[in-house]
C-alpha cells in the first residue's frame, strides 16, 4: 500500500509538473462543453426553400404561405417544373424544395389522403436533416388545420416523419452526457496508456520492476491519479452543463457517480491493455485515440443515433461500452431513471474482462 501511494504521489507530480498537459486535461472538457453546447444548440434560421406548386389552388397557396410563418424558412424560388429542382440544388440556390402535386386540392377537398413531396439537398447532412424536419412540421400543421376546418377529426393528409432528433429535446441536454463519456475515455484510457508506455519507453519501468513491487501495485499506483483527474473532469462537465446550459438532473447523483466509476474502470482497463500491447509511446498514443476516442465520438450515439446506422455497424456500436454508458447517463439525467439492469450487466462484464486482460498482459510483459 505504501508503494502504491509512493507511485501515485510520483505520478501526481508528473501531472502537476507538466503544465501544458495539465492545462489540456482541465481546459479540454470546459472548451468541449462550451463548443458543443453552443454550436449544436444553434437553431436554424432562414433556410432557403424552393416551391413548386403544380396545383395552383387556394389550398396549395395556403400551404405555401404557411411556410414562412415560423421565420425558419425563406421561400427563395418559385419553380414551374420538376426539372428545375436539381439544377437549383446544384447551384446552391436552395436547400430544400416543397412540391405540391396536381390534384392536391381535390384530394384535400374529398377528404382523401393527399401527397406532398419534400426534397432535401443531402450534401450537408446535418442541415438536410433539420430542413426535412421543419418542412414536415409545417406540412403537418397545415394538415391539422385543414382537418379542423372541415370538421373531421383525422388530419387531411399525413406525413410520415423521419425522426432525426426530437426538436423538443434541447441538444445541449443530449450532448453533455455524451461529453462525460468522451472525456472519461480520453483522460482515463489515453492518459494512462501514455503514462505507462512512457515509463516503458524511458526504461524507468525496468528500474521500478527491480524493486520488490508487485505488478498490481504498479498498476494501482499509476492509475489512481488518473481516476481522480477523470472524476474531476466529469464533475466539471456536469457543472457547466447544469449551470450554463441548464441540463436537468432528474435522477440521483449517487447513481450517476456509481455509473461514472464503472465506466472509469472500463476506460482504465482499455488504457492499460493498450499500453501493455504497444511497443512504443507513439503506437500507444495512436492506438488509444483510434480504439477509444474515435468510436466513442462516432459510434456511441454521442452525436449520431445508433438506430440510424447500418446493421453491421450497430453490432459494433453495441460492443462499445460508451454506447451503454450513454444510455444510462441520459436515462439518469434526463429521464430520472436510476437503475439499468441490462446496461449495468453489460458494463460490469466489460469492466471485468478488460481489467483481467489488462493485468494479465501487463504481467506477461514483465517476464
Amino acid at each position: 500500500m505504501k508503494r502504491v501511494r509512493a507511485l501515485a504521489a510520483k505520478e501526481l507530480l508528473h501531472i502537476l509538473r507538466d503544465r501544458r498537459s495539465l492545462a489540456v486535461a482541465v481546459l479540454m472538457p470546459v472548451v468541449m462543453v462550451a463548443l458543443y453546447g453552443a454550436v449544436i444548440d444553434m437553431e436554424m434560421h432562414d433556410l432557403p426553400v424552393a416551391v413548386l406548386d403544380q396545383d395552383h389552388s387556394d389550398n396549395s397557396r395556403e400551404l405555401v404561405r404557411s411556410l414562412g410563418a415560423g421565420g425558419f424558412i425563406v421561400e427563395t424560388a418559385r419553380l414551374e417544373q420538376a426539372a428545375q429542382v436539381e439544377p437549383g440544388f446544384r447551384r446552391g440556390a436552395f436547400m430544400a424544395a416543397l412540391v405540391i402535386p396536381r390534384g392536391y386540392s381535390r384530394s384535400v377537398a374529398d377528404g382523401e389522403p393527399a401527397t406532398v413531396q419534400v426534397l432535401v439537398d443531402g450534401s450537408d447532412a446535418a442541415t438536410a436533416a433539420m430542413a426535412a424536419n421543419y418542412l414536415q412540421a409545417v406540412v403537418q400543421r397545415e394538415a391539422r388545420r385543414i382537418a379542423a376546418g372541415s370538421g373531421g377529426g383525422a388530419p387531411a393528409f399525413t406525413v410520415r416523419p423521419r425522426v432525426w432528433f426530437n426538436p423538443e429535446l434541447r441538444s445541449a441536454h443530449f450532448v453533455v452526457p455524451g461529453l462525460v463519456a468522451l472525456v472519461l475515455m480520453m483522460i482515463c484510457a489515453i492518459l494512462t496508456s501514455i503514462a505507462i508506455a512512457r515509463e516503458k519507453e524511458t526504461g524507468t519501468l525496468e528500474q521500478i520492476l527491480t524493486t520488490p513491487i508487485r505488478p498490481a501495485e504498479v498498476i494501482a499506483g499509476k492509475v489512481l491519479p488518473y481516476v481522480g483527474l477523470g472524476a474531476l473532469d466529469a464533475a466539471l462537465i456536469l457543472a457547466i452543463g447544469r449551470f450554463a446550459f441548464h441540463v436537468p438532473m432528474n435522477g440521483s447523483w449517487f447513481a450517476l457517480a456509481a455509473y461514472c466509476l464503472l465506466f472509469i474502470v472500463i476506460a482504465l482497463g482499455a488504457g492499460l491493455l493498450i499500453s501493455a500491447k504497444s511497443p512504443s509511446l507513439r503506437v500507444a498514443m495512436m492506438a488509444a485515440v483510434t480504439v477509444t476516442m474515435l468510436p466513442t465520438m462516432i459510434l456511441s450515439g454521442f452525436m449520431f443515433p445508433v438506430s440510424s446506422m447500418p446493421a453491421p455497424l450497430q453490432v459494433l456500436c453495441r460492443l462499445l461500452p460508451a454506447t451503454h454508458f450513454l444510455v444510462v447517463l441520459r436515462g439518469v439525467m434526463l429521464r430520472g431513471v436510476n437503475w439499468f439492469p441490462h446496461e449495468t450487466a453489460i458494463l460490469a462484464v466489460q469492466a471485468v474482462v478488460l481489467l483481467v486482460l489488462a493485468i494479465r498482459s501487463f504481467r506477461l510483459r514483465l517476464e
Partner: protein
Amino acid sequence: MNDAIVLDGLFKGYGAVPAVRGLSLSVPAGTICGLIGPDGAGKTTAMRVLCGLLRADRGAARVLGHDCATAALEVKRHLGYMPQRFSLYPDLTVGENLRFFADLFDVPAAERKRRDAELMAFSRLEPFRGRRAGQLSGGMKQKLALSCTLIHTPAVLILDEPTTGVDPVSRREFWRILRELAGNGLALLVSTPYMDEAALCDDIVLMHAGRALAQGTPAAVAASFPRRLLEVTGADLIEAGRRLREASIVGLDVQRYGDCLHLVHDDQAQADAAARALAGTGAVLAPLAAGIEDVFVEMMSRADAEVAM
C-alpha cells in the same frame, strides 16, 4: 558456490534468436566483475535475468544463494540494478527521485535519513538536491542513478554500461566510487563496451555473441593471448597497411589501433617478412605484450571463424 552473484550455464533467447548461450560466471563479495563486449553480445540479457526481469531458458542464476527465478522478491531486496539508459524521472528533483526509490524499497524512516546523507556525501549531489534530474550533467545523472540503486543498501550491484556517454573525468570518478563500494563488501557486476575499463575490474568476462570468449583476472586474460604481437609506429600507417596487404604474408593479421598497428603472428619468419615489407617506410617494429583488446579481437575472429565453418 557461495559467491554473491552466480550464473551457471545460462541460456536465454528471444523467440528463435539466442541472446546468451551458455554463460557461467561468479562474483565474490567485495569484488568487481566486468562484462566486456560489444552491443549485442548478451550483456544486458544476462543482467536482466539476474534482476528477475527475464526468465532463463536454461541454466541457473543466483544472487546471495537465492534463485533469481523462484525467489525473485528475496533477490530484489538485496540487489541494486541500474539499467543502461538514464532511468530516472527528469521532471522530479534529485531528492524526489531518491525518496521515490526509498519508498519502493520500503527503507525504514530512521535508516532513510542516514542513508540519504551517506549517498549525498559520496555522490556530492547535496548542492543539487532541489534540481530536476533532467537538468543534471551526464556524470551527475549517473551518480544519481547509482544513488537510487543504493538507497536500500544492497549487497549486490548490477550496472549496465554505467559509463557509456559519460565524459572521461566523470568516468574516472564513477569507477573510484565503484571501487569504494567493493571495498565496503558489495559484489558488483558491471558491463562496459570500453576495453580500458577492463583493467579497473577484479575479474573480467569477454563476451561475444552470447558466449564468454575468455574470463579471469585482467592480467590472466591478457596473458592468455596465444600468439605473438608486434607494434608498428613511426610510419604513415595507411601506407604501411597497404604494403603489408600487398605482401600478403600468410598467418599475419594486421589491426589498426589509433596511432599504431598491431601485427598478430605466430613465428619469427612472419615477423621478418613484415619487417621486409615495411623496409624504407621509417616504421619501427617492437614486440608488444598483448592487451585485453588484442585478446578480444583474436578470440572473436576465432569464434566467428568457427561459426563460419
